[in-house]
């Protein structure tokens, strides 16, 4: 019973990880309909940013790793959008192949640059240890990831609802043609959205160095989970992503507790498939009068 209660905070922390990796994707997928398979490699870019900064500046680099990773991964995303993806708008299958190819190229590039083995990122010492709840321990690094996820959600919410740029982003998401008619430069909004979405992947990458490997293939471990959250939550929906991530985190945590890791994956997949039978658009649907 005690260890059962321990699964609650574990579920929350799995949910926070899922939310972080999926947040950027909700926007690029939701707004632009781009199935970006290279999202995982932007996570990788963030993780390697933390590694490089630590190499140069030591452990105190942790403080600057988050903004630097955001800018770097964001720029990579922006370049990808400018040079390739924009030629493929409205062709989701072609974009999928294109970005998958890009992800393979980025993985091999990382392998050539940093070597095939995993690299070591040492967590700052204040993240060692944890708080004891009931009989279990909730590590500080998990709490940090939860706090970071909350901060990212709050930041995006404020951006979308309080800034002119963010409102334009929502306008394009809801009805691209009408927004264009009203004078919104949709192409520029697309660029910015892609920058922010990819940048968030970079932030997630830095956070993941606390709990997972840092190597050329880490993107592949997270990309499927990220898409599951986006699809279950509804495209472009912030609250959808939050609720879907938490629900999947909880489901994962308890399913694995009662069965095992392999079966838990099956249960989560099955639950999502059943759920999508009833709500093919995900939890939340964008209400729009667009004809498309």
């Amino acid at each position: 019973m005690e260890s059962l209660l321990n699964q609650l905070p574990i579920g929350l922390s799995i949910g926070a990880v899922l939310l972080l990796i999926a947040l950027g994707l909700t926007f690029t997928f939701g707004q632009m309909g781009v199935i970006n398979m290279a999202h995982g490699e932007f996570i990788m870019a963030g993780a390697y940013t933390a590694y490089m900064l630590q190499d140069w500046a030591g452990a105190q680099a942790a403080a600057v790793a988050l903004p630097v990773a955001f800018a770097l991964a964001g720029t990579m995303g922006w370049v990808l959008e400018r040079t390739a993806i924009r030629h493929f708008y409205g062709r989701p299958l072609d974009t999928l192949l294109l970005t998958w190819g890009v992800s393979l190229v980025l993985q091999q590039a990382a392998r050539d640059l940093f070597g095939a083995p995993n690299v070591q990122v040492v967590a700052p010492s204040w993240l060692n240890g944890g708080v004891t709840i009931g009989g279990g321990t909730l590590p500080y690094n998990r709490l940090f990831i939860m706090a970071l996820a909350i901060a990212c959600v709050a930041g995006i919410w404020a951006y979308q609802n309080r800034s002119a740029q963010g409102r334009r982003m929502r306008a394009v998401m809801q009805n691209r043609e009408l927004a264009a008619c009203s004078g919104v430069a949709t192409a520029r909004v697309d660029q910015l959205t892609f920058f922010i979405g990819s940048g968030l992947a970079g932030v997630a990458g830095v956070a993941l160095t606390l709990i997972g490997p840092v190597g050329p293939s880490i993107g592949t471990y997270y990309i499927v989970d990220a898409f599951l959250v986006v699809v279950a939550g509804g495209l472009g929906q912030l609250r959808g992503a939050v609720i879907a991530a938490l629900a999947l985190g909880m489901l994962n945590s308890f399913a694995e507790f009662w069965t095992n890791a392999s079966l838990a994956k099956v249960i989560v997949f099955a639950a999502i498939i059943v759920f999508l039978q009833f709500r093919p658009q995900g939890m939340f649907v964008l209400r729009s009068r667009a004809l498309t």
Partner: protein
Amino acid sequence: MRKRSLRYWASLAVLPAVLLTGCGDSGDSGAAAGDGNTIKVGILHSLSGTMAISEVTVANAEKMAVEEVNAAGGVLGKKVEIVQEDGASDWPTFAQKAQKLIKKDKVAAVFGGWTSASRKAMLPVFERNRALLWYPVQYEGLESSPYIFYTGATTNQQIVPGLDYLKEKGAKRIFLVGSDYVFPRTANKIIKAYAAANGMQILGEEYTPLGHTEYSTLVNKVVAAKPDAVFNTLNGDSNVSFFKQLKSAGVTADEMPVMSVSIAEEEVKGIGVANIVGHPVAWNYYQTTESAANDEFVRAFQARHRGAVTSDPMEAGYNAVHLWAAAVKKAGTTDVEAVKKAAAGISLDLPEGKVTVDGGNQHVYKTARIGVIQPDGLIKEVWSSDEPIKPDPYLKTYPWASGLS
């Protein structure tokens, strides 16, 4: 519309061009095969994909061994020439490239493979063509192909000594953690049979998919079971997540040592020394192993790859090349059947000590060593079998294992 269809056709037109270039390249290397002054050998490891993390260093060690053989005059008066192919972490690719090396390049032997899946994919290719594969990684045993030489440990040279060590240390309650595929499941079957015969209790047995990164639930289960020790057969990147999350749950090596069989010097760096320091591992070779041959091996490897560490699978790959060269010299030919016959009983002083080829099952005698991970990332030997153990892939000489194979 017109513009779009043009682009469409243009992209289609590029495709065969790319394919043709690919063919042209391999055609060129095939043309060089006519040179009669060299003996070709194949090196077939994953240089790309998820397994590249481990296999690239083994390929490097094998290449170094080939150069050493050449520096010492080659074999049969000829230089050894390497044909390298990329298995790309994809098992059908391994089979396909093995076929290419044997048929097209006509190599005398192939050194390659890491995962059991890649070995199982290549096995029928080598048996069908009556060609030789030298496989350099510890594996789950229960195999003995007449066309494969196994220079890594089989179960009685790694897993059984690992259990002997835990038993000696007084561990009675064991928790099993592994990746969900053939090696951990077979290894755990052996561990359970051993435990039943030696009064040990298995508290739990958990598997996670390959590439799994979320270990908080599993750590929770392990901590709740309060075992004396954990036997870890996780493979690849999962180890990084597992040890990071075990450490942040406050578990130390003193109270719950985790015995690993897939973590060598190379992997310790990626996991982070602080996360794994003090935990035991079971292998046959460490960078710190004391022998004249090892001093030379480590010096030569680090001269080529600055800052690199040497590990057990690298050493086993390096050994494979030298054992093959010795067998060819003894046979006086590269003919596969003659080399197989000549290899039996060959004994060389290699970095891990004396290594002898067993003619019966084509495995090698290896000394088992338990090591503990040090704060500097290297592994210090704390226990050894003192002498090379005869390979027994089917565990026929262990009464408790009678029900296994």
